[in-house]
């Protein structure tokens, strides 16, 4: 596959099943979210409050992180600092090995996917079992997540049944042979399959939605209860937490608990909200490790225009409302962070080939910012990152696109040159046009005319203006 969003999107667009699955789900969740938000009288104030809390943290992040570390240590947790993915993965492997374990159960976590933890554990001979239903589907089918909240959004029930029947036995308790695609049966098969892992595992790995500085508490917000099992049953718990997840005070959670659930699942209240503050003898994990992960976040922090990217609470409302995501699905973004937030976050925290096409994977329609519960100016940041891509290329050799934009800028900065351009365009449209429309043009303009007509030029506005002035 060629390295870029447009090429990856092309294959997604050709997949009729995928488009049907995505269109159905995003449309449903979009209107549910709108309904859930409309119930709240002071939604805009809640959004402003969330934005303010996050900005306050980001303005003084080192201080808040040190407060968090002190509180965590006071509560009996062990704090590790990881500059990048490799460092974080290394700590996890060391802790698991120190317990003599060869497997971990996992709470759904974007951060551990970002750092490729499962792959790193596998290389060290440690099995990582995803326990979120959708993540289980993804893991069993050797697939990649395509949505932050609903990673198997691209699969329908029949496909999930087939995956369970074909693959579940390789990972543990098999699916019953008479499994149908009814949601209750699929959930029961997953429940039985996962239960033996919950009861057996000695180490759990999680992320955290929030890390509260003053109380030293971590928070996981989930819908299935699998997270609660992982956070309470195994004796050792390792949490990988992005440094932007810190909030100053326990009370700040009240804002995000109200905005997160309605924005992500359109629920009034989140089903399973687990909080834990270090170690409590005889209750839950007796060894708690917290890995505070940078992995490019300091660079985002250092850029005042892009900094609001770090406000993100991973609700995925922007994915569900994005017209581009709705057509392409998440895989086209080729990152664990797809959709509008992925288009701004991914190219800031990594530099894989093709990532520089991500800021251009948007019409700048602004639907994402409109639904964002922390008001991230995604369109502005997209434009900022586009400028960064273009500026980066300025240091390279001659670039046909830059020459074209240079020429266009020269033409569009002067009315006589624009008039000359108009004359060329109008002559061309008369040559190529039939019956008032142009149906086919050579590359690169064929990118337009492959699917769309162009009008043949009419009397220019300024000539009309002149003739009118002469006539009066």
């Amino acid at each position, binding site marked *: 596959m060629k390295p870029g*969003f*447009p090429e990856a*999107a*092309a294959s997604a*667009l050709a997949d009729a099943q995928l488009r049907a699955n995505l269109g159905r789900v995003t449309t449903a969740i979009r209107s549910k979210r709108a309904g859930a938000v409309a119930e709240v009288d002071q939604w805009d104030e809640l959004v402003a409050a969330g934005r303010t809390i996050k900005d306050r943290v980001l303005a003084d992040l080192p201080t808040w992180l040190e407060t968090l570390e002190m509180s965590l240590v006071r509560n009996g947790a062990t704090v590790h600092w990881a500059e990048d993915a490799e460092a974080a993965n290394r700590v996890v492997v060391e802790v698991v090995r120190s317990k003599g374990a060869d497997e971990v159960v996992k709470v759904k976590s974007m951060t551990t996917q970002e750092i490729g933890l499962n792959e790193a554990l596998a290389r060290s001979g440690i099995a990582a079992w995803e326990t979120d239903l959708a993540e289980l589907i993804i893991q069993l089918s050797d697939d990649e997540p395509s949505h932050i909240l609903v990673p198997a959004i691209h699969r329908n029930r029949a496909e999930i049944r087939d995956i369970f029947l074909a693959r579940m036995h390789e990972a543990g308790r098999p699916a019953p042979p008479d499994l149908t695609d009814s949601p209750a049966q699929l959930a029961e098969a997953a429940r039985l399959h996962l239960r033996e892992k919950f009861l057996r595992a000695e180490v759990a790995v999680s992320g955290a939605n929030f890390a509260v500085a003053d109380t030293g508490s971590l928070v996981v917000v989930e819908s299935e209860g699998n997270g609660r099992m992982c956070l309470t049953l195994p004796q050792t718990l390792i949490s990988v937490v992005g440094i932007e997840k810190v909030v100053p005070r326990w009370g700040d959670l009240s804002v995000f608990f109200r905005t997160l659930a309605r924005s992500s699942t359109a629920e009034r209240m989140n089903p399973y909200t687990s909080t834990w503050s270090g170690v409590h003898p005889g209750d839950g994990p007796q060894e708690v490790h917290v890995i505070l992960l940078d992995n490019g976040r300091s660079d985002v922090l250092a850029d005042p225009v892009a900094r609001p990217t770090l406000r993100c609470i991973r609700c995925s409302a922007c994915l569900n409302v994005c*017209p*581009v995501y709705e*057509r*392409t699905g998440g895989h086209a973004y080729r990152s664990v962070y797809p959709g509008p937030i992925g288009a701004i976050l991914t190219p800031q925290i990594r530099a894989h080939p093709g990532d520089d096409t991500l*800021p*251009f*994977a*948007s*019409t*700048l*329609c*602004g*639907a994402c*910012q*409109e639904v964002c519960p922390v008001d991230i100016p995604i369109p*502005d940041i997209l*434009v900022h990152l*586009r*400028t*960064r*891509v*273009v*500026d980066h290329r300025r240091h390279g050799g001659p670039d046909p696109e830059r020459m074209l*934009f*240079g020429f*266009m*800028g020269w033409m*569009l*900065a*002067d*009315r006589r*040159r*624009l*008039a000359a351009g*108009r004359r060329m*365009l*109008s002559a061309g449209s008369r040559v190529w046009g039939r019956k008032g*429309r142009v149906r086919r043009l050579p590359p*690169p303009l064929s*990118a*337009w005319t*492959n*699917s*769309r*007509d*162009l*009008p043949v*030029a*009419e*009397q*220019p*506005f*300024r000539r*009309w*203006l002149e003739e009118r002035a002469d006539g009066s």
Partner: protein
Amino acid sequence: MITCLGETVAPRVPRATVRLLERLGCEVTVPPSQACCGQMHVNSGYLDEAVPVVRNFTDAFAGADHVVAPSGSCVGSVRHQHRLVAARSGDPALAKAVDEVAPRVWELSEFLVDVLGVTDVGAAFPHRVTYHPTCHSLRLVGVGDRPRRLLEAVRGLELVDLAGADECCGFGGTFALKNFGVSTAMGLDKVAAVSASGAEVLTAGDASCLLHMWGLLSRQNSPVRVMHLAEILAGEGTP
């Protein structure tokens, strides 16, 4: 403001705008040195190349009481992006010029409703019309229901709902070329909604989005006519 699309592919739009404003008693001047607002360059990441375009814009419109543009996205660009371009240029004179001109630039429906204080512009248009609220008019400029109020006051005009109206048509400037597959997929869904609305005429406040939807409708040999809001309000043209 003619807009660069009004200069090239959509001359009826500035024509209708001039007629409409004159009918409402405005003294309309068309500064001859104007060319483009620079939006395409800024949105594509070419800030350096946008500097002369923005400079020409501020020179052309310096001194006007009100600058009226039949385009939400051009107005959005002037208000939200010209300052960025000026900062990039490092020229304090350009920054000052931008700050002087930008607050006097109005999107057409804003100017009619907020500045002139009219919603009934005296137009007649006895046809079934559906309105697409373009993204930048809706979300960047915030025109709200002004265009709908203007259309509802047109004699004989029947305004029909457009399903998924506030979803993007897929144009997105150079997005339409760089990501033509996604752009077309979005546009086809949009024009399918237009056809399903039963409207004879599709209207919007941006010639660029209209060009995209017209291009798709024309390719389908659709009977739906595409007209800018200004054309309907000027009482010009019949399907």
